[in-house]
């Protein structure tokens, strides 16, 4: 519905690119788009204003620089600024010298405290600790029951006392000492920041257990109110870090930025699903890209790094775009990609991928016949699919348990893909797109890649300028019709 910022800026960027220099009026126009994007991402109004002021300065600076593509400079400075604002100090968990280490969970109703208490307990378990969960939410019906069920699932004991939340918390701490548990996580009732009575109660709980860490749980879908809430909880409890919950949705999550900017504490964890293992440490750089709608390219890179040999991937990409990519290479890459996760989720993380593809349900099992067909080929056939004639086809089909038609289609599509990627590779080298960027792509590693793709100043440096245009490229529209 809302265009992401990259798309929005595309038009302006094109215009500016033609000029080569940014005027103040251009900057104003760009700033308006950035402001809108931030507001649509639920970044707090006041925070938007201060961030925009800072970005504006950089942008104006860019107008005076003729050495860099100003548009790219602007996009980069937005990303830098957001990453800076979200990042900085990180939370390091240090354990109390005299155990147990006490963690207090606080937040609004429905923000996800109970689930995240259990997730955190599982996380501590993973760190080799023995946590105890304490149910101090006596407000919501069956909240303690919920915590007990979750505790059973992760094999962590749960303590509660139905008489009173403050007493339950204090007794929970004693219980942990008695049982020799070295981490205590106190799940409190959800409360409104303006509910004086309930805020006093949580202050008393905090006083009773004297937590080493107080975590504020904030729903990633929260709007402007995130700031009010965080401020009030911080004033009452002194928050150490924030846990962003429900990050698996499609909210841009500007609340994270606002809260970080206003109370200045790190965002320590992100909760990314309903499963108790879907909980991870927070990555500010990824969040910046998300707020801007630039896709989660950094996650992608990290995953790629984990699974890939750098040169190998690089060679594959270069070969692919030079059209020298064989079916063997293809098989190889397929294995690598499978290691990284499901195809569907990988596609979702890439910016610039056509919507139709993002929405497509891609089942990794669909890869199996492709794999089987390629494996049934001889090395020669894989290197040069053109030699595959009628009898070879029949043999391959038999060998892979598929139909001759399937083999045909695969060979044909592979040819199409080669052609298309070759064009894609060449498109970047056409005159007009060259200019100053051409110079930078001349490095030894840039062989065969469109210069824009390697431009360290383009967006996050990993934006894929060629991709958004892909659906219009010759060869593609027809693909699925053939």
């Amino acid at each position, binding site marked *: 519905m809302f265009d992401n910022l990259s798309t929005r800026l595309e038009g302006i960027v094109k215009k500016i690119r033609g000029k080569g220099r940014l005027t103040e009026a251009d900057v104003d126009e760009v700033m308006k788009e950035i402001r809108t994007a931030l*507001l649509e991402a639920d970044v707090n*109004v*006041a925070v938007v204003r201060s961030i925009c*002021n*800072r970005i504006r*300065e*950089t942008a104006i600076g860019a107008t005076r*620089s003729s050495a860099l593509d100003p548009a790219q400079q602007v996009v980069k400075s937005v990303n830098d600024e957001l990453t800076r604002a979200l990042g900085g100090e990180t939370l390091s968990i240090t354990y109390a010298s005299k155990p147990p280490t006490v963690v207090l969970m606080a937040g609004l*109703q*429905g923000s996800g405290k109970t689930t995240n208490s259990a997730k955190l307990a599982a996380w501590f378990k993973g760190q080799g600790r023995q946590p105890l969960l304490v149910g101090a939410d006596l407000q*919501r*019906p*069956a909240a303690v029951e*919920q915590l007990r069920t*979750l505790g059973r699932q992760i094999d962590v004991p749960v303590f509660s006392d139905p008489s009173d939340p403050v007493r339950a918390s204090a007794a929970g701490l004693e219980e942990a000492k008695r049982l020799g548990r070295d981490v205590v996580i106190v799940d409190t009732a959800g409360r*409104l*920041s*303006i509910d*004086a009575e309930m805020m006093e109660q949580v202050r008393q709980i905090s006083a009773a257990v004297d937590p080493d860490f107080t975590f504020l749980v904030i729903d990633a*879908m*929260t*709007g*402007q*109110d995130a*700031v*009010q*809430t965080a*401020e009030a909880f911080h004033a009452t409890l002194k928050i150490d870090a924030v846990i962003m919950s429900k990050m*698996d*949705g*499609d909210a841009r999550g*500007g609340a994270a930025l606002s809260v970080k900017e*206003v*109370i200045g504490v790190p965002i320590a964890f992100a909760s990314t699903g*309903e499963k108790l293992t879907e909980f991870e440490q927070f990555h500010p750089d990824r969040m910046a890209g998300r707020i801007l709608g630039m896709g989660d390219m950094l996650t992608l890179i990290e995953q*790629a*790094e984990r699974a890939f040999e*750098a040169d190998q*991937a690089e060679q*594959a*990409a270069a070969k*692919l775009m030079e059209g020298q990519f064989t079916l063997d290479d*293809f098989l190889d*890459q*397929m294995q690598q*990609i499978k290691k990284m996760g499901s195809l569907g989720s990988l596609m979702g993380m*890439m910016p610039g991928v056509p919507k139709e593809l993002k929405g*497509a349900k*891609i089942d990794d099992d669909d890869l199996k016949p*492709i794999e089987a067909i390629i494996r049934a080929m001889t090395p020669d056939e894989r290197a040069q699919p053109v030699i595959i004639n009628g009898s070879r086809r029949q043999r391959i089909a038999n060998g892979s348990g598929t139909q001759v038609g399937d083999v045909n289609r*695969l060979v044909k*599509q592979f040819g199409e893909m080669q052609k298309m*990627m070759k064009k894609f590779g060449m498109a970047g080298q056409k005159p007009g797109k060259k200019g100053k960027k051409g110079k930078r792509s001349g490095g030894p*590693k840039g062989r065969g*890649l469109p210069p824009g*793709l390697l431009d*360290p100043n383009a967006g996050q*440096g*990993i934006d894929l300028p060629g*991709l958004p245009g892909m659906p219009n490229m010759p060869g593609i529209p027809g693909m699925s019709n053939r």
Partner: protein
Amino acid sequence: MGIEILFLVLAIAVVAFGIGVIVVSRRNIAATQAPPARPARPTTPPPEAEPDAADGAGVLVEEPPVEPVEPASLRDRLAKARLAFTGAFVGVLGRSGITEESFEDLEEALLRADVGVGVTTDLIDGLRVKVAAKEITEPQGLLDELEAEMVSRLDGSDRTLAFDADAGGPNVWMFVGVNGVGKTTTIGKLANQQIRDGRTVLLAAGDTFRAAAAEQLTTWAERSGAEIVRGAEGGDPSSVIYDGVERAAARGTQLVMADTAGRLHTKSNLMEELKKVRRVAEKGAGRVTETLLVIDATTGQNGLTQAREFREATDVTGVVLTKLDGSAKGGIVFAIETELGIPVKLVGIGETIEDLIPFDPAEFVAALVEP
């Protein structure tokens, strides 16, 4: 899934990873070799020096502690929340005339209430036109006009809860929404009202996912005096709803309120499950006469997407706005109603059984707009 699309996907994936890896390795090289070339530019001031951020942040701290109030009107409930927002309106009224700042103050107030950039810009532009045409000349007139315009955009919606006495079986009201918004609590409150109004009500515990969700609903059944049908945790929600409707039909119970597990609208399998629940609810004698989307007042711009997706999946007939007793203003429902045409029907203003009231556009807007 055709082979074609797979090829495209793989090709893009290969290229993207190749490039990603290259960029990363280059960055690493650059980092170890030389500082990146940068244009000379003034260093940006430290964030603390930013008066704006401090402004927005400081509001709540100065708020006097408030006594907890009895369940009362929305206006009373909102009075305390409103204190935090008076800044903008005091600003508008504090000037002797209408200036550019007046518009900016109003714009900021609307944005802070989560009304959204699109709607806000539209409303403010409308005001500008009227001011330019000298139709509005006084600051108070500006506030009045904004309020009137917003209320008029909410006019004419049917906010009654549909109940068909001639349905030939139980009416089913379904409750849907993302996790933690207040579906179960709203069911408890509404069941209480319906029973007080003389209807017989059965609650169907369709949230079989969340731990202890059925216990929670059972507590509300006890509080309200409704019957309850529940299934096994982790069981099939459709069959619980089906059983609930069958039981209601057999006993002549008039109304089934179907609870569902919270789900993010982005999870297509869970949205499919919801469609199925809705279909199954009408498989027997039951008829779904309301599908209420519950939206939490703290929800930001994502609320609009939620409303779109849930409507697509389940034919949403109305919105329940919860947690309006907090500091959040719930402005996103203004966008949901005016842009998607889904009427807001009920408002949750607390955690006790009485804390559910009909949505009143004038009161809602007043809470957003009045000082």
